[in-house]
């Protein structure tokens, strides 16, 4: 079995697992945070989940693609995550503006929800891995 194949299968396994875990947790965390913050109708919650379904797997895919097949750029994984999160905030801002026009400050909603879910996720990882 060639090394490339082993690496590829590892990449697929980690990717599948992380996409599912990350998506489920993000939808739950952001859903609860948004509910507390005032997005309480079924339509708003569904829209938020839908937006996460679009953005989250892409981020996880890009992160692990970089992790396994990165071009050797000496970029800290945490820094790379933050760069990806910035793009997520921008994408979710546009999507929220498009799909939930009743929101007055969609950018701050996107920023706040992502900061919350990413921050909590990061803290959880720190706790679990120590």
């Amino acid at each position: 079995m060639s090394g490339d194949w082993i690496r590829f299968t590892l990449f697929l396994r980690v990717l599948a697992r992380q996409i599912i875990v990350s998506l489920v947790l993000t939808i739950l965390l952001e859903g609860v945070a948004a509910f507390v913050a005032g997005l309480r109708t079924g339509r708003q919650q569904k829209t938020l989940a839908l937006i996460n379904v679009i953005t989250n797997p892409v981020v996880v895919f890009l992160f692990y693609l970089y992790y396994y097949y990165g071009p050797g750029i000496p970029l800290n994984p945490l820094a790379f995550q933050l760069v990806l999160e910035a793009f997520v905030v921008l994408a979710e801002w546009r999507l929220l503006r498009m799909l939930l026009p009743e929101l007055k400050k969609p950018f701050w909603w996107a920023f706040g929800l992502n900061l919350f879910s990413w921050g909590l996720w990061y803290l959880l990882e720190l706790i679990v891995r120590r």
Partner: protein
Amino acid sequence: MKKLFYKKTLTAVLMTCLLLFLWSSTAMTAHADVIGGPTDGDDFYWDHRDETVSLYVFCHVKIETPGFDAPGDAVPVVSLKPGERTFVEVAWQDANGVWWVLAEDGVSGPSGHGGYMSGSWFPMERMYLEGEDGKEVSALSLVGGGADGSNLPVSGRLRSTIAGIPVIVVIIVLAVLFVLWLLAVILVIRRHKRGR
């Protein structure tokens, strides 16, 4: 009515698949921990991952017998009684494409006692570890070192038995996820059009 039934059935099936996958995928953690987790080892890996540094990663799989003082970060991960068997999956590659695995006393594996293996992505997906007569294997550690012989932790965590899920299952799950993602994109576009 019929449509609703199919919709609910499909949702239930998908949810079951996801839960099953989540449950079974916990066994894959070690892949992430060895290769991708944010541990000391990963920092080591990433910090040296450029073309200017000639780096050798020395992976050291060690089975400790009680009281044995292992170098590096020894993390108890698996308890094997005589006759019990488990395996670890190790895959680590340094900048030069060389990595080493060393199995020592208390281990029955392809490497034998005190032997070592090397190679570029050595095709050792599973290394079987077995408790031997009169010995109880109490811990397993994965320790890395530089080319100068210094010990550096490669991974702080390596969990017990790693059950590999067949690649085809993983590919099917990823394909289903991709289809769901496409559906979400289509839904968003439709909602947007309806909104206008």
